[in-house]
């Protein structure tokens, strides 16, 4: 077969394929998925998220179990999205002896109904300065969130302060000026939800979800540095939103959109590699059965029947439980288990091809077994092979997801099954965190659909008789 022949063959196939509308839709989906993989670094909002996916420290400034940002369009009460405040006004007050005084002022426009989940301050620098953090509300009232506390800043990690965890008592004192005694008795001093108190109108009900106080808040940080070698720089404030990212966050504060995007390449890898390995084995196995016939066929058919009798998924689960395989080993095992699918059909097609005259002719010309099988028989089976490969991809992806859901998968990768596993364990179903359960499963279904469209389109070209009556 020359190159031109191949090109003609391909164009012939493509002309047929073009006529199948859902085949084109499947191809379009596949291209979108591939583009998402190629441009992954540009799409993913977090750098280095692949390595840091199971690193709790990496995600600690983000909110826990937050809804996706776009849910604000559909709800009456707007939730605060996550935002990072980096612009500040720095003033250095006159030095007193060795002691230096710095003040940083951040401005935050608050126009939402439901307060953020936390406000986190980070500093770089070195030493143990005394820090006071206060917030000036739009109604002119000031709350001291942290009063003159010694803050240990390490030169490597800096320092991190979570207002939700550190300002309970101060928020309680502020609220007790306005709240009714009855409401206040139901709130524990150290258990108070800090952020809603800071960002609600100073009135009765401030601890029980009073109306939000909208406007510009000023967050003031003053630091006292006692030693000359001490320094403080680059303060950053992160508002951990009540809504976050395109697909929300999970209970380990990870951005789910990032996880979904990172999962695409693993899903395609698992699906394509598994189906390639197993269908290749199956097709060659079937062809050999058909070509040699006789005793070879009988023995190989018996071996096939043994494999055919194995319940695949239970065995796969057992093997994963015993060997706790890496993703590559898992793909190899799946490839070796799922090859039985095409054998019967390939064998019956192969039996027909074997009787064709051109096989006899090449035999007469002295072609060997290898040449006959791989040059003459296998190429005729290629369309069927590709269709089978496409149709096996969804099964392989679901199998990996199932293994992962059971907690037996490769935990070093970010796959959709792993996300669903953590959702299942993290109580997403009971608590109704739909944004944690729907997208990964939907992606599995969409990827499966993509390959089903492609596979069925090829199938339709192969069996034109079934198109219509």
């Amino acid at each position: 077969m020359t190159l031109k022949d191949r090109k003609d063959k391909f164009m012939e196939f493509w002309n047929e394929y073009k006529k199948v509308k859902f085949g084109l839709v499947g191809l379009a989906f596949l291209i979108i998925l591939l583009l998402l993989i190629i441009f992954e670094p540009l799409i993913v909002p977090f750098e280095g998220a692949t390595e840091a996916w199971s690193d709790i420290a990496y995600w600690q400034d983000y909110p826990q179990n937050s809804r996706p940002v776009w849910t604000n369009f559909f709800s009456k009460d707007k939730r605060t999205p996550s935002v990072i405040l980096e612009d500040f006004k720095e003033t250095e007050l006159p030095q007193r002896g060795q002691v230096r005084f710095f003040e940083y002022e951040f401005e935050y426009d608050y126009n939402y109904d439901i307060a953020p989940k936390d406000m986190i301050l980070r500093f770089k620098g070195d030493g143990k300065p005394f820090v006071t953090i206060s917030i000036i509300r739009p109604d002119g009232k000031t709350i001291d969130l942290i009063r003159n506390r010694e803050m240990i800043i390490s030169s490597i990690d800096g320092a991190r302060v979570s207002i939700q965890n550190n300002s309970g008592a101060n928020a309680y004192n502020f609220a007790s000026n306005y709240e009714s005694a009855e409401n206040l008795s139901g709130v524990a001093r150290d258990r108070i939800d800090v952020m809603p108190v800071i960002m609600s109108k100073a009135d009765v009900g401030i601890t029980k979800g009073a109306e939000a106080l909208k406007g510009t808040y000023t967050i003031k940080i003053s630091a006292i540095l006692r030693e000359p070698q001490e320094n403080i720089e680059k303060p950053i404030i992160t508002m951990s939103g009540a809504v976050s990212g395109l697909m929300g966050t999970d209970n380990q504060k990870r951005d789910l959109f990032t996880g979904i995007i990172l999962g695409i390449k693993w899903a395609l890898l698992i699906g394509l590699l598994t189906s390639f390995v197993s269908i290749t084995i199956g097709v060659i196995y079937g062809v050999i059965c058909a070509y040699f016939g006789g005793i070879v066929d009988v023995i190989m058919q018996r071996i096939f029947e043994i494999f055919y009798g194995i319940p695949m998924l239970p065995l796969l689960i057992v093997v994963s439980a015993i060997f706790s395989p890496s993703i590559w080993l898992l793909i190899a095992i799946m490839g070796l288990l799922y090859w039985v699918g095409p054998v019967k059909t390939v064998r019956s097609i192969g039996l027909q091809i074997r009787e064709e005259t051109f096989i006899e002719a090449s035999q007469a010309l002295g072609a060997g077994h290898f040449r006959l099988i791989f040059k003459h028989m296998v190429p005729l089976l290629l369309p069927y092979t590709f269709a089978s490969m496409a149709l096996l991809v969804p099964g392989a992806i679901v199998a990996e997801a199932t293994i992962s859901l059971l907690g037996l998968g490769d935990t070093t990768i970010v796959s959709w099954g792993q996300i669903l596993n953590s959702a299942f364990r993290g109580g997403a179903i009971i608590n109704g965190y739909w944004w944690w359960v729907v997208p990964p499963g939907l992606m599995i279904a969409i990827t499966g659909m993509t390959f089903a469209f492609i596979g069925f389109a090829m199938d339709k070209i192969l069996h034109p008789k079934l198109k219509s009556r």
Partner: protein
Amino acid sequence: MNWKYIIKRLLLTVIVYVILVFIYSVLFNSVLERTIRVQIQEKIQAEIMAMTDMPSDQVRNYREQRMKQEYDRYELDKPVLQRILNRTKRTLTFDFGNATHMRSKTGEQNAWTIVKETIPRTVILFSTATIINLIIGIMVGIKKAQKAGGALDKATSIGTMIVFGMPAWWLGMLLIMFFGYTIKIFPPGGIQSTPPFDGFRAFLDQGYHMVLPVITLVILGFWGTSFLTRNVVLGTLQEDFVMSARARGIPERAVLYGHTLRTAAPPITTMAVMSLVNSIFGNIVFEGIFSWPGMGNLYFTAVQQQDVPVQITLLAILTGMQLLALAILDIVYGFLDPRIKVGGRR
């Protein structure tokens, strides 16, 4: 009737089954023996702890003696191959031994007893779902074949492909989340309410608990059934004998249900039986999601608790069921369609 063929087919099934059980025994051997060794050690340690005033050399003697006894009992001192073969033999004679940690509802340790009580629950759930699925699927499939290329045919074909790669357990999760926890009209899991009812109400209660899992299975299942039925029926409708039946003036209904469906019966039966068998062990996780106390759920728990005897028992039973189903199908095929002589000499 071809007795020779039936016997040959059953014999083959038995041979394949023996080989598979042997493979499972090889696979599980090291894990299982590790567990047994740990158990023996714990047991002897406990015995020694109970005997307070015993000199240390006597303790050593006692330990060695007991070790030997126990190793003898579990055949741990025999060669590896013999141990594996013995285990294969025991599994084949339904002597599955005791579970490591798990207990049956009545507190028994025997692995077979534990597995036995889950089988009817699984069968009831999946056979109900499969029957509903087949009724809807075959009805839709016939309609599709009658107007092949029509709007219904196209729409359901697209539907088949959309649900093709959708995991049943994921749809189950969504339905539980919505119907079980958000609007709370169906129980989110389990097989009966707590406290359980008696008599007829218990039956109704179980049916109520089955609604959600059955709906999930049917929503995902009937597309494939209808697609296959359509292809089979459509293939038959193009045969000459259908044409001649129509030419003879036989009404279309009779052509469809009498001539066509009878010819299309064997592949549809295969599909029905295989979809039942496949759904049982294709849905191990499914039962876990719905906390339906069947075989899948047991397997799920056994894998997580690393209870190997229960796993082997379940695998042996499931494999036996699948092989038996395949064999029966092959034999029944001969009755349904005398043209087919599976395994006959060409």
